[in-house]
């Protein structure tokens, strides 16, 4: 029985989402991590609202990067350990389609979830409500880009026993432009300025990684799987 690429993608996507929702604790952990990390900053620095508002873009973005990275390791790991990934690779479907579906599923349960709870964190950091739409838009594009970059890193480190630190070491330098534009867009939105320039850059990065990262992540998986 042959399945088209589109339906293979939706099948893998549905499988990933089902698996994620069967394990709600794993789903919630990065989100709780995001909340806790952002709580650390007012405690460590100062609870003064004006200071927090100045720091908010950086805190939000660094915490989102780390939280997203935390769940990245599991992208291919459990499937590689129980052999599912090899079966998927041998299924005759393009591995790229499977990588895209898995990464999108990962983004939906980690990145998109972060975007949804980001107003909660932002309120704690004294971000004005008017800045929320741009903050959420920039976080949405940023976390998607990060998921693509993370897919490359996860593909490269999937066979390794201690891959998680290495994964951060690989992905974080690549994610630095993301942090710059994302934090800048949020910063400008908080300051009431126009954030279009930074948002365009974010969108460009997002499109760029969406088009090229699946190729790199697939090549990475082929190297580590064989």
């Amino acid at each position, binding site marked *: 029985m042959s399945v088209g690429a589109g339906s293979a993608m939706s099948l893998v996507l549905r499988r990933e989402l089902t698996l994620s929702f069967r394990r709600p604790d794993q789903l919630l952990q990065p989100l709780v991590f995001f909340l806790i990390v952002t709580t650390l900053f007012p405690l460590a620095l100062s609870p003064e609202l004006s200071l927090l508002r100045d720091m908010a873009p950086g805190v939000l973005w660094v915490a989102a990067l780390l939280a997203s990275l935390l769940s990245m390791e599991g992208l291919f790991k459990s499937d590689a350990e129980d052999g599912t990934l090899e079966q998927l690779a041998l299924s005759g479907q393009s591995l790229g389609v499977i990588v895209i579906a898995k990464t999108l599923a990962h983004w939906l349960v980690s990145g998109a979830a972060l975007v949804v709870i980001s107003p909660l964190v932002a309120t704690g950091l004294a971000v004005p409500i008017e800045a929320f739409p741009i903050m959420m838009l920039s976080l949405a594009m940023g976390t998607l880009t990060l998921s693509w970059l993370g897919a490359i890193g996860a593909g490269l480190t999937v066979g390794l026993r*201690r891959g998680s630190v290495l994964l951060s070491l690989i992905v974080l330098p690549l994610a630095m*432009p993301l942090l710059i534009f994302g934090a800048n867009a949020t910063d400008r939105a908080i300051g009431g300025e126009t954030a279009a320039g930074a948002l365009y850059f974010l969108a460009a990065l997002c499109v760029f990684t969406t088009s090229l990262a699946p190729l790199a992540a697939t090549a990475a998986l082929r*190297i580590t799987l064989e």
Partner: protein
Amino acid sequence: MWTWFYRLASPPYVYRTAAAFAPWFLLIAGIAIAYGVIDGLVFAPPDYQQGNAFRIIYVHAPAGWLSMFGYTLMAVAGAIGLIWRIKMAHAVSAAVAPIGASFTVLGLVTGSLWGRPMWGTYWAWDPRLTSELILLFLYFGVMSLRAAFEDPARGDRAAALLAIVGVVNVPIIHFSVQWWNSLHQGATVMKFEKSSMPGSMLWPLLAMFLGFMLFFGAMLCMRLRGEVLNRERQSSWVREMLRA
């Protein structure tokens, strides 16, 4: 016509060629660096603005240039190894990584020492400094990824892929960092226009560039020989050579 190219894929040939080149590279590098150091540090006139402090440029600029050259070479060699499955290209890529990383560290350290008298601080979040630092992180990533694999062939290919991804990212990082800084800091202390250098300053600098590049080449040849020996330690030609 292409036979020289094909021979580059043969480990014994690479091993012998690297051995033949290394002493010449080292010799010419020694002469060029000796001339550059003496002429640059002693005879070149002090800069009208920076005084004698500018002289660190004779180490800093070649090191900074080689840090980027090394990364590109690592990625290009990795790509050749990945595409045509040439083992020796991976050996070059593996051999060049620590050298390039060392030059990156050298560039950062000399830049920081230069920054102290000029800008009044050892470290400023200047775009060039920041992107150089990120370049160092990229080197670390590639080197640790290669080392993390037990199977060297897979480590090679994974590291090559990461190096290529990094090369695609380097311009993005470079421009994003520039853009980031130009937004946050208006006028900076670190404005020194690239004035056209007089010959008395320029010649030693060019000699240092040549010397550093040849030194880089010599180090690469030496590390490559070690890399080839280590990779081919099970093969008959290494055993025969060791027996002889």
